[in-house]
Protein backbone atom coordinates (compact mmCIF):
# COMPACT_ATOMS: atom_id res chain seq x y z
CA UNK A 1 0.00 0.00 0.00
CA UNK A 2 2.63 2.51 1.07
CA UNK A 3 4.96 1.45 -1.77
CA UNK A 4 2.31 2.13 -4.38
CA UNK A 5 1.51 5.44 -2.71
CA UNK A 6 5.12 6.60 -3.01
CA UNK A 7 5.09 5.93 -6.77
CA UNK A 8 2.41 8.59 -7.32
CA UNK A 9 3.34 12.24 -7.02
CA UNK A 10 -0.11 12.97 -5.57
CA UNK A 11 -2.21 10.31 -3.91
CA UNK A 12 -5.63 11.28 -2.58
CA UNK A 13 -7.55 8.62 -0.67
CA UNK A 14 -11.17 8.81 0.54
CA UNK A 15 -11.15 12.60 0.68
CA UNK A 16 -14.14 14.29 2.31
CA UNK A 17 -14.47 18.08 2.63
CA UNK A 18 -17.44 19.70 4.38
CA UNK A 19 -18.17 23.42 4.77
CA UNK A 20 -20.63 24.43 7.50
CA UNK A 21 -22.15 20.96 7.50
CA UNK A 22 -22.55 20.90 3.71
CA UNK A 23 -20.72 18.10 1.91
CA UNK A 24 -18.63 19.56 -0.93
CA UNK A 25 -16.43 16.55 -1.65
CA UNK A 26 -17.30 13.01 -0.65
CA UNK A 27 -15.08 9.97 -0.84
CA UNK A 28 -12.74 11.10 -3.61
CA UNK A 29 -9.78 8.81 -4.37
CA UNK A 30 -7.47 10.00 -7.15
CA UNK A 31 -3.79 9.43 -7.91
CA UNK A 32 -1.69 11.62 -10.19
CA UNK A 33 1.59 10.41 -11.64
CA UNK A 34 4.68 12.58 -11.98
CA UNK A 35 4.76 14.29 -15.37
CA UNK A 36 1.00 13.95 -16.01
CA UNK A 37 -1.17 16.89 -17.05
CA UNK A 38 -4.59 16.44 -15.49
CA UNK A 39 -7.57 18.67 -16.23
CA UNK A 40 -10.34 18.77 -13.65
CA UNK A 41 -13.59 19.84 -15.25
CA UNK A 42 -17.11 20.27 -13.98
CA UNK A 43 -19.79 22.90 -13.62
CA UNK A 44 -19.57 25.74 -11.07
CA UNK A 45 -20.07 24.51 -7.51
CA UNK A 46 -18.97 20.93 -8.19
CA UNK A 47 -16.01 21.22 -5.80
CA UNK A 48 -13.15 21.24 -8.31
CA UNK A 49 -11.50 24.36 -6.89
CA UNK A 50 -11.98 23.03 -3.35
CA UNK A 51 -10.31 19.77 -4.44
CA UNK A 52 -7.39 21.66 -5.93
CA UNK A 53 -6.95 23.87 -2.84
CA UNK A 54 -7.13 20.79 -0.63
CA UNK A 55 -4.35 18.97 -2.48
CA UNK A 56 -2.00 21.93 -1.99
CA UNK A 57 -2.92 22.21 1.70
CA UNK A 58 -4.86 25.49 1.54
CA UNK A 59 -8.05 23.80 2.79
CA UNK A 60 -7.80 21.09 5.45
CA UNK A 61 -9.69 17.90 4.59
CA UNK A 62 -12.58 16.86 6.85
CA UNK A 63 -11.50 13.23 6.38
CA UNK A 64 -9.17 11.26 4.18
CA UNK A 65 -5.50 11.50 3.27
CA UNK A 66 -3.50 13.54 0.74
CA UNK A 67 0.06 12.44 0.05
CA UNK A 68 2.52 14.48 -1.98
CA UNK A 69 5.60 12.47 -2.94
CA UNK A 70 4.79 10.03 -0.15
CA UNK A 71 4.35 12.67 2.60
CA UNK A 72 0.92 12.99 4.14
CA UNK A 73 0.16 16.72 4.26
CA UNK A 74 -2.08 16.66 7.35
CA UNK A 75 0.73 15.19 9.50
CA UNK A 76 3.31 17.83 8.54
CA UNK A 77 4.28 20.71 10.83
CA UNK A 78 3.62 24.23 9.44
CA UNK A 79 7.35 24.59 8.63
CA UNK A 80 7.48 21.21 6.85
CA UNK A 81 4.29 22.08 4.95
CA UNK A 82 5.88 25.36 3.85
CA UNK A 83 8.88 23.40 2.55
CA UNK A 84 6.59 21.07 0.58
CA UNK A 85 4.68 24.06 -0.84
CA UNK A 86 7.93 25.42 -2.29
CA UNK A 87 7.74 22.47 -4.66
CA UNK A 88 4.35 23.74 -5.92
CA UNK A 89 3.55 26.56 -8.30
CA UNK A 90 0.03 27.96 -8.12
CA UNK A 91 -1.61 30.08 -10.83
CA UNK A 92 -4.71 31.74 -9.37
CA UNK A 93 -7.92 32.45 -11.26
CA UNK A 94 -7.40 36.23 -11.17
CA UNK A 95 -3.61 35.91 -10.89
CA UNK A 96 -3.65 37.09 -7.21
CA UNK A 97 -0.72 39.42 -7.81
CA UNK A 98 0.21 41.63 -4.85
CA UNK A 99 -1.27 45.08 -5.55
CA UNK A 100 1.28 46.84 -3.40
CA UNK A 101 4.26 45.52 -5.40
CA UNK A 102 5.61 46.06 -8.91
CA UNK A 103 5.53 43.22 -11.44
CA UNK A 104 9.25 42.64 -10.80
CA UNK A 105 8.73 42.28 -7.04
CA UNK A 106 5.72 40.00 -7.62
CA UNK A 107 7.69 37.58 -9.82
CA UNK A 108 10.78 37.83 -7.58
CA UNK A 109 8.75 37.17 -4.41
CA UNK A 110 9.14 33.34 -4.32
CA UNK A 111 12.91 33.63 -4.90
CA UNK A 112 13.34 36.25 -2.18
CA UNK A 113 11.18 34.19 0.16
CA UNK A 114 12.73 30.76 -0.41
CA UNK A 115 16.27 31.18 -1.75
CA UNK A 116 19.47 33.01 -0.89
CA UNK A 117 19.96 34.21 -4.49
CA UNK A 118 21.48 37.69 -4.86
CA UNK A 119 19.63 40.54 -6.57
CA UNK A 120 21.55 40.14 -9.86
CA UNK A 121 20.52 36.51 -10.13
CA UNK A 122 16.92 37.35 -9.17
CA UNK A 123 16.85 40.09 -11.82
CA UNK A 124 18.14 37.73 -14.50
CA UNK A 125 15.65 34.97 -13.59
CA UNK A 126 12.68 37.36 -13.45
CA UNK A 127 13.43 38.74 -16.92
CA UNK A 128 13.97 35.21 -18.31
CA UNK A 129 10.61 33.95 -17.02
CA UNK A 130 8.76 37.08 -18.09
CA UNK A 131 10.23 36.58 -21.57
CA UNK A 132 9.10 32.94 -21.55
CA UNK A 133 5.50 34.07 -21.02
CA UNK A 134 5.86 36.70 -23.74
CA UNK A 135 6.14 39.85 -21.63
CA UNK A 136 8.69 42.59 -22.42
CA UNK A 137 11.19 43.79 -19.78
CA UNK A 138 9.38 47.15 -19.70
CA UNK A 139 6.55 45.67 -17.59
CA UNK A 140 8.76 45.12 -14.55
CA UNK A 141 8.22 48.58 -13.12
CA UNK A 142 4.45 48.54 -13.62
CA UNK A 143 1.83 47.71 -10.98
CA UNK A 144 -0.64 44.83 -11.51
CA UNK A 145 -3.52 47.31 -11.93
CA UNK A 146 -1.79 48.75 -15.02
CA UNK A 147 -1.86 45.41 -16.90
CA UNK A 148 -4.66 43.69 -18.84
CA UNK A 149 -6.24 40.45 -17.56
CA UNK A 150 -4.23 38.31 -19.99
CA UNK A 151 -0.96 39.99 -19.02
CA UNK A 152 -1.71 39.51 -15.32
CA UNK A 153 -2.36 35.80 -15.95
CA UNK A 154 0.98 35.52 -17.74
CA UNK A 155 2.75 37.28 -14.85
CA UNK A 156 1.01 34.77 -12.56
CA UNK A 157 2.45 31.90 -14.62
CA UNK A 158 5.95 33.45 -14.54
CA UNK A 159 5.69 33.78 -10.74
CA UNK A 160 4.46 30.20 -10.38
CA UNK A 161 7.33 28.66 -12.37
CA UNK A 162 10.22 30.82 -11.17
CA UNK A 163 11.32 28.24 -8.58
CA UNK A 164 10.91 25.44 -11.18
CA UNK A 165 8.32 23.55 -9.16
CA UNK A 166 7.47 19.87 -9.54
CA UNK A 167 3.74 20.54 -9.52
CA UNK A 168 2.00 23.49 -11.18
CA UNK A 169 -1.65 24.03 -10.37
CA UNK A 170 -3.75 26.30 -12.61
CA UNK A 171 -7.10 27.57 -11.32
CA UNK A 172 -9.36 28.38 -14.29
CA UNK A 173 -6.49 29.82 -16.32
CA UNK A 174 -8.57 30.94 -19.30
CA UNK A 175 -11.68 32.23 -17.52
CA UNK A 176 -12.48 35.82 -18.46
CA UNK A 177 -10.10 35.94 -21.43
CA UNK A 178 -10.91 36.36 -25.13
CA UNK A 179 -10.50 33.23 -27.34
CA UNK A 180 -7.13 34.33 -28.71
CA UNK A 181 -5.68 35.07 -25.27
CA UNK A 182 -7.20 31.80 -23.98
CA UNK A 183 -5.27 29.94 -26.66
CA UNK A 184 -2.10 31.87 -25.80
CA UNK A 185 -2.47 30.68 -22.20
CA UNK A 186 -3.09 27.09 -23.44
CA UNK A 187 0.10 27.27 -25.50
CA UNK A 188 2.01 28.66 -22.52
CA UNK A 189 0.87 25.76 -20.36
CA UNK A 190 2.08 23.34 -23.03
CA UNK A 191 5.33 25.30 -23.28
CA UNK A 192 5.91 25.12 -19.51
CA UNK A 193 5.46 21.35 -19.70
CA UNK A 194 7.95 21.10 -22.58
CA UNK A 195 10.59 23.25 -20.87
CA UNK A 196 10.35 21.81 -17.36
CA UNK A 197 9.60 18.30 -16.07
CA UNK A 198 6.41 19.38 -14.29
CA UNK A 199 3.19 17.71 -13.26
CA UNK A 200 0.23 19.96 -14.00
CA UNK A 201 -3.26 20.10 -12.55
CA UNK A 202 -5.62 22.41 -14.42
CA UNK A 203 -9.04 23.27 -13.01
CA UNK A 204 -11.18 24.54 -15.84
CA UNK A 205 -14.59 24.52 -17.45
CA UNK A 206 -13.11 25.45 -20.79
CA UNK A 207 -13.29 22.27 -22.90
CA UNK A 208 -10.78 23.62 -25.41
CA UNK A 209 -8.19 23.84 -22.62
CA UNK A 210 -8.99 20.33 -21.36
CA UNK A 211 -8.81 18.83 -24.83
CA UNK A 212 -5.70 20.69 -25.99
CA UNK A 213 -3.49 20.61 -22.89
CA UNK A 214 -4.46 17.61 -20.76
CA UNK A 215 -3.35 13.96 -20.90
CA UNK A 216 -6.15 12.97 -18.57
CA UNK A 217 -9.48 14.50 -17.59
CA UNK A 218 -11.41 14.14 -14.34
CA UNK A 219 -15.01 15.34 -14.32
CA UNK A 220 -16.53 16.27 -10.95
CA UNK A 221 -20.26 16.62 -10.33
CA UNK A 222 -21.96 18.64 -7.54
CA UNK A 223 -22.46 16.39 -4.52
CA UNK A 224 -25.96 17.72 -3.83
CA UNK A 225 -27.29 16.49 -7.20
CA UNK A 226 -25.89 12.97 -6.97
CA UNK A 227 -27.68 9.89 -5.63
CA UNK A 228 -26.42 8.72 -2.23
CA UNK A 229 -23.97 6.08 -3.46
CA UNK A 230 -23.02 7.62 -6.79
CA UNK A 231 -19.31 8.52 -7.16
CA UNK A 232 -18.56 12.25 -7.43
CA UNK A 233 -15.98 11.76 -10.19
CA UNK A 234 -18.12 10.97 -13.25
CA UNK A 235 -15.25 10.56 -15.70
CA UNK A 236 -11.57 9.70 -15.36
CA UNK A 237 -9.79 9.09 -18.65
CA UNK A 238 -8.19 10.64 -21.73
CA UNK A 239 -9.77 13.77 -23.28
CA UNK A 240 -10.52 11.83 -26.50
CA UNK A 241 -12.89 9.53 -24.60
CA UNK A 242 -15.14 12.31 -23.28
CA UNK A 243 -17.41 12.35 -26.36
CA UNK A 244 -18.01 8.59 -26.16
CA UNK A 245 -18.68 8.52 -22.41
CA UNK A 246 -21.82 6.55 -21.56
CA UNK A 247 -22.89 9.06 -18.91
CA UNK A 248 -25.26 11.67 -20.42
CA UNK A 249 -24.14 14.29 -17.91
CA UNK A 250 -20.54 14.06 -19.14
CA UNK A 251 -21.51 14.33 -22.81
CA UNK A 252 -23.86 17.25 -22.10
CA UNK A 253 -21.13 19.11 -20.24
CA UNK A 254 -18.59 18.53 -23.01
CA UNK A 255 -21.04 19.75 -25.67
CA UNK A 256 -22.28 22.62 -23.50
CA UNK A 257 -25.94 21.50 -23.63
CA UNK A 258 -28.25 22.65 -20.84
CA UNK A 259 -30.57 19.63 -21.36
CA UNK A 260 -32.17 18.37 -18.18
CA UNK A 261 -30.35 21.02 -16.11
CA UNK A 262 -32.46 23.74 -17.72
CA UNK A 263 -35.61 21.91 -16.61
CA UNK A 264 -34.22 21.61 -13.07
CA UNK A 265 -33.40 25.32 -12.88
CA UNK A 266 -36.54 26.73 -14.47
CA UNK A 267 -38.84 24.09 -12.98
Amino acid at each position, binding site marked *: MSDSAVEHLIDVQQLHVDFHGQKILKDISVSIEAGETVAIIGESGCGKTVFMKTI*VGLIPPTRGTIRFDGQELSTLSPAALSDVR*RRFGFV*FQNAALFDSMTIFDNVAFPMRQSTTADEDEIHERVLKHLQEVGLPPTVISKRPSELSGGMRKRVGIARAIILQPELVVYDEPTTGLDPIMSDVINELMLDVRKRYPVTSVIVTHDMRTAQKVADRVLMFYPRARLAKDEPQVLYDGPPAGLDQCEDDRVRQFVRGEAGQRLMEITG
Partner: protein
Amino acid sequence: MSLSVSTQNDPASGRPENGSATIRDMLYAWVVQWGAAVVDGIATVGDIAMFAWQMLVWIFTRLPQRGTLLINFYQIGVLSLPVVALTGTFIGMVLAVQSYYQFHAIGLESHLGVVINTSLVRELGPVLAATMLAGRVGSAMAAVLGTMRVTEQIDALTTMGADPVHYLVVPRFLACIFLIPALTIMADFMGIVGGYFYSVMVLEIDHAAYLTHSRDGVVGFDLFSGVFKSVFFGGMIAVISCYQGFHCKPGAEGVGKAATQAFVYSFVMILAIDLFLNIILDKIYFAMYPAGANIL
Protein backbone atom coordinates in the same frame (compact mmCIF):
# COMPACT_ATOMS: atom_id res chain seq x y z
CA MET B 1 -44.78 29.18 34.47
CA SER B 2 -48.04 28.43 32.70
CA LEU B 3 -48.50 28.76 28.96
CA SER B 4 -52.24 27.99 28.96
CA VAL B 5 -53.30 31.64 28.84
CA SER B 6 -53.01 31.71 25.07
CA THR B 7 -55.83 29.17 24.67
CA GLN B 8 -58.30 32.00 25.42
CA ASN B 9 -57.28 33.68 22.19
CA ASP B 10 -58.78 30.97 20.06
CA PRO B 11 -61.92 29.63 21.78
CA ALA B 12 -63.58 28.56 18.54
CA SER B 13 -60.77 26.31 17.42
CA GLY B 14 -61.54 23.55 19.89
CA ARG B 15 -57.80 22.92 20.08
CA PRO B 16 -56.57 24.73 23.19
CA GLU B 17 -53.03 23.38 22.78
CA ASN B 18 -52.47 25.42 19.57
CA GLY B 19 -51.80 28.69 21.39
CA SER B 20 -49.47 27.00 23.85
CA ALA B 21 -47.67 25.36 21.00
CA THR B 22 -47.17 28.73 19.29
CA ILE B 23 -45.67 30.29 22.41
CA ARG B 24 -43.59 27.20 22.97
CA ASP B 25 -42.32 27.41 19.36
CA MET B 26 -41.52 31.08 19.75
CA LEU B 27 -39.66 30.44 22.99
CA TYR B 28 -37.82 27.57 21.35
CA ALA B 29 -36.84 29.72 18.37
CA TRP B 30 -35.73 32.52 20.73
CA VAL B 31 -33.57 30.14 22.78
CA VAL B 32 -32.08 28.62 19.61
CA GLN B 33 -31.34 32.04 18.15
CA TRP B 34 -29.70 33.43 21.29
CA GLY B 35 -27.96 30.15 21.99
CA ALA B 36 -26.44 30.19 18.51
CA ALA B 37 -25.36 33.82 18.97
CA VAL B 38 -23.67 33.01 22.30
CA VAL B 39 -21.93 29.93 20.84
CA ASP B 40 -20.78 31.99 17.82
CA GLY B 41 -19.51 34.74 20.11
CA ILE B 42 -17.52 32.30 22.25
CA ALA B 43 -16.12 30.61 19.11
CA THR B 44 -15.05 34.01 17.70
CA VAL B 45 -13.29 34.96 20.96
CA GLY B 46 -11.49 31.60 20.86
CA ASP B 47 -10.57 32.16 17.22
CA ILE B 48 -9.16 35.63 17.95
CA ALA B 49 -7.16 34.20 20.88
CA MET B 50 -5.69 31.50 18.60
CA PHE B 51 -4.92 34.12 15.96
CA ALA B 52 -3.14 36.30 18.54
CA TRP B 53 -1.26 33.27 19.86
CA GLN B 54 -0.02 32.34 16.35
CA MET B 55 1.19 35.93 15.95
CA LEU B 56 2.99 35.94 19.32
CA VAL B 57 4.72 32.64 18.47
CA TRP B 58 6.06 34.24 15.28
CA ILE B 59 7.26 37.35 17.16
CA PHE B 60 9.34 35.19 19.49
CA THR B 61 10.63 32.83 16.77
CA ARG B 62 11.36 34.97 13.71
CA LEU B 63 10.84 38.68 13.09
CA PRO B 64 9.79 39.93 9.62
CA GLN B 65 12.30 41.45 7.22
CA ARG B 66 13.35 45.06 7.80
CA GLY B 67 11.67 46.33 4.61
CA THR B 68 8.31 44.84 5.59
CA LEU B 69 8.56 46.39 9.05
CA LEU B 70 9.58 49.83 7.83
CA ILE B 71 6.73 50.24 5.35
CA ASN B 72 4.19 49.36 8.06
CA PHE B 73 5.85 51.67 10.59
CA TYR B 74 5.68 54.46 8.03
CA GLN B 75 2.05 53.86 7.08
CA ILE B 76 0.80 53.39 10.64
CA GLY B 77 3.04 55.85 12.47
CA VAL B 78 4.27 58.63 10.23
CA LEU B 79 1.11 59.04 8.15
CA SER B 80 -1.02 59.22 11.33
CA LEU B 81 0.97 62.10 12.83
CA PRO B 82 -1.01 65.04 11.42
CA VAL B 83 -4.44 63.67 12.34
CA VAL B 84 -3.34 62.68 15.86
CA ALA B 85 -1.64 66.04 16.44
CA LEU B 86 -4.79 67.82 15.34
CA THR B 87 -6.98 65.62 17.56
CA GLY B 88 -4.72 66.28 20.57
CA THR B 89 -4.73 70.05 20.02
CA PHE B 90 -8.50 70.21 19.85
CA ILE B 91 -8.96 68.03 22.95
CA GLY B 92 -6.75 70.40 24.93
CA MET B 93 -8.65 73.46 23.74
CA VAL B 94 -12.06 71.89 24.28
CA LEU B 95 -11.09 70.95 27.84
CA ALA B 96 -10.09 74.57 28.48
CA VAL B 97 -13.43 75.84 27.13
CA GLN B 98 -15.45 73.29 29.12
CA SER B 99 -13.65 73.76 32.45
CA TYR B 100 -13.05 77.49 32.46
CA TYR B 101 -16.46 78.77 33.65
CA GLN B 102 -16.69 76.36 36.60
CA PHE B 103 -13.19 77.25 37.74
CA HIS B 104 -13.70 80.94 37.07
CA ALA B 105 -16.85 80.92 39.23
CA ILE B 106 -14.82 79.87 42.26
CA GLY B 107 -11.79 81.98 41.32
CA LEU B 108 -9.52 79.08 40.56
CA GLU B 109 -9.02 79.56 36.84
CA SER B 110 -5.24 79.65 37.28
CA HIS B 111 -5.50 75.94 38.23
CA LEU B 112 -7.11 75.07 34.93
CA GLY B 113 -3.87 73.56 33.59
CA VAL B 114 -3.92 70.81 36.22
CA VAL B 115 -7.33 69.62 35.13
CA ILE B 116 -6.56 69.88 31.44
CA ASN B 117 -3.19 68.17 31.63
CA THR B 118 -4.20 65.41 34.05
CA SER B 119 -7.31 64.58 32.03
CA LEU B 120 -5.23 64.57 28.87
CA VAL B 121 -2.31 62.42 29.87
CA ARG B 122 -4.28 59.96 31.99
CA GLU B 123 -7.42 59.47 29.95
CA LEU B 124 -8.45 61.60 27.02
CA GLY B 125 -5.13 61.62 25.17
CA PRO B 126 -4.68 57.81 25.09
CA VAL B 127 -8.37 56.96 24.56
CA LEU B 128 -9.14 59.55 21.88
CA ALA B 129 -5.83 58.98 20.07
CA ALA B 130 -6.54 55.24 20.09
CA THR B 131 -10.11 55.85 18.87
CA MET B 132 -8.83 58.03 16.05
CA LEU B 133 -6.25 55.37 15.16
CA ALA B 134 -8.82 52.57 15.30
CA GLY B 135 -10.65 54.55 12.60
CA ARG B 136 -7.65 55.52 10.51
CA VAL B 137 -5.34 52.55 10.95
CA GLY B 138 -7.64 49.71 12.08
CA SER B 139 -10.23 50.14 9.32
CA ALA B 140 -7.49 50.51 6.70
CA MET B 141 -5.75 47.32 7.88
CA ALA B 142 -9.03 45.38 7.81
CA ALA B 143 -9.88 46.72 4.34
CA VAL B 144 -6.42 45.96 2.88
CA LEU B 145 -6.21 42.47 4.37
CA GLY B 146 -9.86 41.80 3.51
CA THR B 147 -9.22 42.73 -0.13
CA MET B 148 -6.15 40.50 -0.09
CA ARG B 149 -8.27 37.64 1.27
CA VAL B 150 -11.03 38.15 -1.32
CA THR B 151 -8.59 38.39 -4.24
CA GLU B 152 -6.70 35.28 -3.03
CA GLN B 153 -3.49 37.22 -2.32
CA ILE B 154 -3.35 35.69 1.18
CA ASP B 155 -3.67 32.20 -0.34
CA ALA B 156 -0.94 33.16 -2.82
CA LEU B 157 1.39 34.00 0.07
CA THR B 158 0.72 30.62 1.64
CA THR B 159 1.38 28.73 -1.59
CA MET B 160 4.72 30.51 -1.94
CA GLY B 161 5.86 29.27 1.46
CA ALA B 162 5.26 32.58 3.29
CA ASP B 163 3.12 32.42 6.42
CA PRO B 164 0.46 35.17 6.08
CA VAL B 165 0.35 35.81 9.84
CA HIS B 166 4.13 36.25 9.93
CA TYR B 167 4.25 38.33 6.77
CA LEU B 168 1.15 40.49 7.17
CA VAL B 169 0.07 40.55 10.83
CA VAL B 170 3.33 40.64 12.82
CA PRO B 171 4.65 43.89 11.21
CA ARG B 172 1.28 45.60 11.72
CA PHE B 173 1.11 44.47 15.34
CA LEU B 174 4.65 45.65 16.09
CA ALA B 175 3.97 49.00 14.40
CA CYS B 176 0.81 49.43 16.50
CA ILE B 177 2.33 48.54 19.88
CA PHE B 178 5.38 50.74 19.36
CA LEU B 179 3.92 53.66 17.47
CA ILE B 180 0.46 54.09 19.00
CA PRO B 181 2.09 54.90 22.38
CA ALA B 182 4.43 57.30 20.55
CA LEU B 183 1.46 58.92 18.85
CA THR B 184 -0.31 59.12 22.21
CA ILE B 185 2.63 61.10 23.62
CA MET B 186 2.32 63.35 20.58
CA ALA B 187 -1.43 63.79 21.22
CA ASP B 188 -0.73 64.56 24.91
CA PHE B 189 1.90 67.14 24.00
CA MET B 190 -0.30 68.86 21.42
CA GLY B 191 -3.23 68.79 23.86
CA ILE B 192 -1.13 70.46 26.56
CA VAL B 193 0.01 73.09 24.06
CA GLY B 194 -3.57 73.58 22.80
CA GLY B 195 -4.93 73.90 26.35
CA TYR B 196 -2.19 76.35 27.30
CA PHE B 197 -2.70 78.39 24.15
CA TYR B 198 -6.45 78.71 24.66
CA SER B 199 -6.21 79.36 28.42
CA VAL B 200 -3.44 81.96 28.24
CA MET B 201 -4.07 83.60 24.87
CA VAL B 202 -7.85 83.51 24.68
CA LEU B 203 -9.06 83.22 28.28
CA GLU B 204 -6.21 85.47 29.48
CA ILE B 205 -5.16 83.37 32.47
CA ASP B 206 -1.78 84.36 33.87
CA HIS B 207 0.72 82.18 32.13
CA ALA B 208 3.21 81.88 35.03
CA ALA B 209 0.47 80.74 37.43
CA TYR B 210 -0.96 78.39 34.81
CA LEU B 211 2.43 76.73 34.26
CA THR B 212 3.33 76.49 37.95
CA HIS B 213 0.05 74.82 38.90
CA SER B 214 0.20 72.55 35.87
CA ARG B 215 3.68 71.37 36.77
CA ASP B 216 2.75 70.70 40.39
CA GLY B 217 -0.43 68.80 39.61
CA VAL B 218 0.77 66.21 37.10
CA VAL B 219 3.10 63.43 38.25
CA GLY B 220 5.17 61.04 36.16
CA PHE B 221 2.79 58.21 36.95
CA ASP B 222 -0.03 60.06 35.15
CA LEU B 223 1.97 60.12 31.96
CA PHE B 224 3.11 56.54 32.45
CA SER B 225 -0.43 55.24 32.99
CA GLY B 226 -1.67 56.84 29.76
CA VAL B 227 1.22 55.51 27.67
CA PHE B 228 1.00 52.09 29.35
CA LYS B 229 -2.69 51.82 28.42
CA SER B 230 -1.96 52.88 24.85
CA VAL B 231 0.33 49.86 24.36
CA PHE B 232 -2.68 47.62 25.04
CA PHE B 233 -4.96 49.78 22.87
CA GLY B 234 -2.46 49.47 20.01
CA GLY B 235 -2.14 45.71 20.37
CA MET B 236 -5.91 45.29 20.51
CA ILE B 237 -6.49 47.47 17.41
CA ALA B 238 -3.93 45.40 15.46
CA VAL B 239 -5.25 41.99 16.51
CA ILE B 240 -8.95 42.80 15.99
CA SER B 241 -8.43 44.61 12.68
CA CYS B 242 -6.12 41.98 11.19
CA TYR B 243 -8.48 39.21 12.33
CA GLN B 244 -11.42 40.96 10.66
CA GLY B 245 -9.42 41.31 7.44
CA PHE B 246 -8.32 37.67 7.47
CA HIS B 247 -11.89 36.47 7.99
CA CYS B 248 -13.48 38.82 5.47
CA LYS B 249 -16.45 37.51 3.50
CA PRO B 250 -16.30 37.75 -0.31
CA GLY B 251 -17.40 40.85 -2.19
CA ALA B 252 -17.42 44.59 -1.67
CA GLU B 253 -19.95 44.19 1.15
CA GLY B 254 -17.63 41.75 2.94
CA VAL B 255 -14.69 44.15 2.82
CA GLY B 256 -16.88 47.07 3.97
CA LYS B 257 -18.24 45.02 6.85
CA ALA B 258 -14.75 43.91 7.91
CA ALA B 259 -13.57 47.55 7.99
CA THR B 260 -16.64 48.68 9.97
CA GLN B 261 -16.43 45.81 12.44
CA ALA B 262 -12.71 46.40 12.91
CA PHE B 263 -13.48 49.94 14.12
CA VAL B 264 -16.54 49.07 16.20
CA TYR B 265 -14.96 46.10 17.99
CA SER B 266 -11.66 47.96 18.49
CA PHE B 267 -13.53 50.92 20.00
CA VAL B 268 -15.53 48.71 22.37
CA MET B 269 -12.38 46.87 23.41
CA ILE B 270 -10.48 50.15 23.93
CA LEU B 271 -13.16 51.25 26.41
CA ALA B 272 -13.30 47.83 28.11
CA ILE B 273 -9.51 47.61 28.47
CA ASP B 274 -9.45 51.23 29.63
CA LEU B 275 -11.84 50.44 32.48
CA PHE B 276 -9.97 47.29 33.45
CA LEU B 277 -6.53 48.93 33.39
CA ASN B 278 -7.78 52.06 35.18
CA ILE B 279 -8.96 49.93 38.10
CA ILE B 280 -5.53 48.29 38.36
CA LEU B 281 -3.56 51.50 37.76
CA ASP B 282 -5.63 53.40 40.35
CA LYS B 283 -4.76 50.81 42.98
CA ILE B 284 -1.07 51.21 42.12
CA TYR B 285 -1.41 55.01 42.03
CA PHE B 286 -2.99 55.28 45.48
CA ALA B 287 -0.40 52.87 46.86
CA MET B 288 2.34 55.16 45.52
CA TYR B 289 0.62 58.46 46.34
CA PRO B 290 -1.63 57.82 49.38
CA ALA B 291 -2.75 61.46 49.51
CA GLY B 292 -4.17 61.21 45.96
CA ALA B 293 -4.04 63.92 43.36
CA ASN B 294 -3.18 67.35 44.72
CA ILE B 295 -5.22 69.50 42.39
CA LEU B 296 -5.54 72.52 44.62
